[in-house]
């Protein structure tokens, strides 16, 4: 009898359990490729290598990584493609905030906003990565392709950046930077180093951008005082694409046909480059005042200083200036705009030679626009700039060995 009751009790309990708690369990949701990839990025342990298989993978939401020491590795920038053509959420393709990060051999295409943003990270390696907007130079493209900001020890090697409506390769507010062996094409700015220190930009090709290579320092940012950048052995060719940046952005002020532009940066060494057919000017050196924007920042130095341009090759260019003062100059001289154009603004206690030195640039031509006197008396005399500055030191990153 007692045994019988126990059996009954067990049975009743089982029924209760079944009915109340052990109802057929709701099935687990299935994860898509992008959810699985995002899950891998979240659950990665330091040292993990996350592989992106060959193929075009459609994603709809931003990916992000916060774990240090992770490598994301594809099968090649033309094989492993993360396509954000159908993106409906997130301001980036991949957002990384993680030290000791490596990404290599893949492509990020058609993101709504920036393609690859890396914020506040140390030891960043971006190798053979392509970021591209496949519809060409459109204002609706995202702002930045490869975009490390407030980072340290950044190597960008063998990358390709196409179609950014701001900068293809943009390194901002960072220090200890190498950008090399890369190609920037059809962006507003091909390669831009902004509010950064200690950068080597070399052996790159910047072509068909609005401006090939820009080195800028802007006010009102937590990191400023941009300086110590070497730009060397680059091919800066035919950067004549009409400026397609959304209005209101500083890069929107860059004239189409700019080979290289230095804005308010100090200690810049430009050498061994080949400048070809950049039709506003092969090289522009300007102060922030040229933008006409207000400066509300007591700590900001709007003037470029200690710019040393030597041993470069110039060929063609300056034939179709996309800037009012340059167009007026061309109309007045009936000559192409000179290879190297300086706006001529000088900080109160400085001389021309403190700003700019020119040496061994073949048959370079030069203009001082006299911008501080409303462009009243431009000069073509480069003799005040016949000087040399000490060579800047080499940037050395262990990742670049």
């Amino acid at each position: 009898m007692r045994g019988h009751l126990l059996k009954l009790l067990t049975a009743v309990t089982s029924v209760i359990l079944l009915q109340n708690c052990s109802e057929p369990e709701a099935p687990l949701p299935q994860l898509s490729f992008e959810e699985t990839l995002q899950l891998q990025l979240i659950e990665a342990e330091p040292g993990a290598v996350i592989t992106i298989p060959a193929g075009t993978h459609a994603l709809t939401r931003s990916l992000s990584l916060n774990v240090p020491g992770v490598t994301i590795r594809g099968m090649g920038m033309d094989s492993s493609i993360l396509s954000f053509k159908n993106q409906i959420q997130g301001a980036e393709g991949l957002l990384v905030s993680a030290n000791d990060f490596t990404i290599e051999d893949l492509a990020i295409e058609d993101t709504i906003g920036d393609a690859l943003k890396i914020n506040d990270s140390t030891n960043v390696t971006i190798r053979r990565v392509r970021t591209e907007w496949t519809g060409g130079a459109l204002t609706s493209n995202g702002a930045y392709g490869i975009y490390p900001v407030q980072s340290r020890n950044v190597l960008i090697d063998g990358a390709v950046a196409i179609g950014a409506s701001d900068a293809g390769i943009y390194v901002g507010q960072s220090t200890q930077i190498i950008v090399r062996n890369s190609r920037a094409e059809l962006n507003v700015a091909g390669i831009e180093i902004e509010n950064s220190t200690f950068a080597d930009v070399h052996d790159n090709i910047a072509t068909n951008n609005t401006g090939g290579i820009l080195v800028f320092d802007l006010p009102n940012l937590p990191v400023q005082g941009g300086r110590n950048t070497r730009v060397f052995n680059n091919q800066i060719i035919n950067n004549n694409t009409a400026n397609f940046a959304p209005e209101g952005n500083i890069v929107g002020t860059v004239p189409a046909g700019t080979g290289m532009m230095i804005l308010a940066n100090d200690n810049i060494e430009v050498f061994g480059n080949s400048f070809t057919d950049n039709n506003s000017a092969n090289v522009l050196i300007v102060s922030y005042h040229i933008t006409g924007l207000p400066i509300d920042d007591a700590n900001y130095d709007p003037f470029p200083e200690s710019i040393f341009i030597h041993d470069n090759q110039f060929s063609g260019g300056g034939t179709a200036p996309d800037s009012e003062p340059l167009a007026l100059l061309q109309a007045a001289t009936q000559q192409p705009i000179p290879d190297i154009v300086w706006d001529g603004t000088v900080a109160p206690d400085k001389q021309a030679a403190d700003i700019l030195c020119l040496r061994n640039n073949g048959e370079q031509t030069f203009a001082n626009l006299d911008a501080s006197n409303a462009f009243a008396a431009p000069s073509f005399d480069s003799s005040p700039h016949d000087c040399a500055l000490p060579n800047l030191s080499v940037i050395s990153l262990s990742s670049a060995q």
Partner: protein
Amino acid sequence: MASACWRPALTAITLLTALYACAPQAPVFHASGSPVRLSEWNLFVLSADSLAPAPAAMVFAPTNQLFTDYAQKLRTLWLPPATAANWLDGEIDYPVGTILTKTFYYPVDGEGTALQTAPQSQSLLDLRSNQLVETRLLVRREQGWDAFPYVWNDEETEAFLRVAGSSKLIDLKSDAGSRRFSYFVPNENQCAACHVTEHPDGELQPLAAIARQLGSSFDADADPALTQIEELQRRGWLSAAANSTPDSTLDSTLDSKPDAVSSSPAISWLDPSATTAERARAYLNVHCGHCHNPQGAADTSALLLDGSNTAPINLGVCKPPVAAGGGAGERLFAIVPGAPERSILLYRMESSEPDEMMPELGRTLVHAEGVALISQWIAELPGSCSTDGITQ
């Protein structure tokens, strides 16, 4: 004889029913691991037609909450038995085991279509007139807070952990008609994007269950004078003595005092007795300040909206964009005093393009009421921007 045997058996059955039925006895703190099902935490009593917080949990509401596509939010706070929070530098320091929940839901009409309504304060959700979307947990573990986003299944019988986030198409009906949009459940990194206010090395922190957000009534009908802080203390969940000295280490060189970095109660952006400027700053603080602060992920822009810095340029007055791209909307400055229609800040609030809109996370729709407030504030600001700088 038989009946004498049956009685204890029935008692035992009743007891077992109580033990094993799904109505939870108490929430369960998982000190590690990531439970796949929300029910493993025992934080709610779920039946076919209602969802109620576990009786041991406290329902609370912050003074200012983030706009999330007009979703309603039911928040609970639970501390393990015999534990209490303490004050640390003017902030509530919760004990290990604390669990915060936030359940996102929409009231629905008879056909099950989601309705856009004014913020509600339901603590028992009738599932015949409400649709559950997701429940997010913040769990205080030994090493800090962990975030867990759970997404409800269509049957509303369970919510599953979706570490990588999720999305759901929702038809939302308002007076202006019906619109379909993608509601996004954040992934765990996106949780951190807001809840880690000190980028990148800070810790995940609660944003609602904090001192300055708990100054409003616990139960406005029963006892309007009792604040939620006091209710925590009444329950023995928070020590009485507030270390109320606000952090005064921020050296402001400005005329007006920073208004965020203290535990004094926040002003509600909906408070009709507050000035437009106070309401606007309260709104910007809760919607922008988690990134736009001096240690935040958006400090790269130098636009600081957490109230710690009231220099006009850092609030955006006559500040050119840095990396806004199309988000600048072809406008020249973040704020042009007197001219909301020329202010980037407003453009980004009015945009629903993922690469342009602000905040970047947490919404697909435009928050019309927030836009109206910020627009009014900018319209009332004196001065103008010129290429020579700020003109007062």
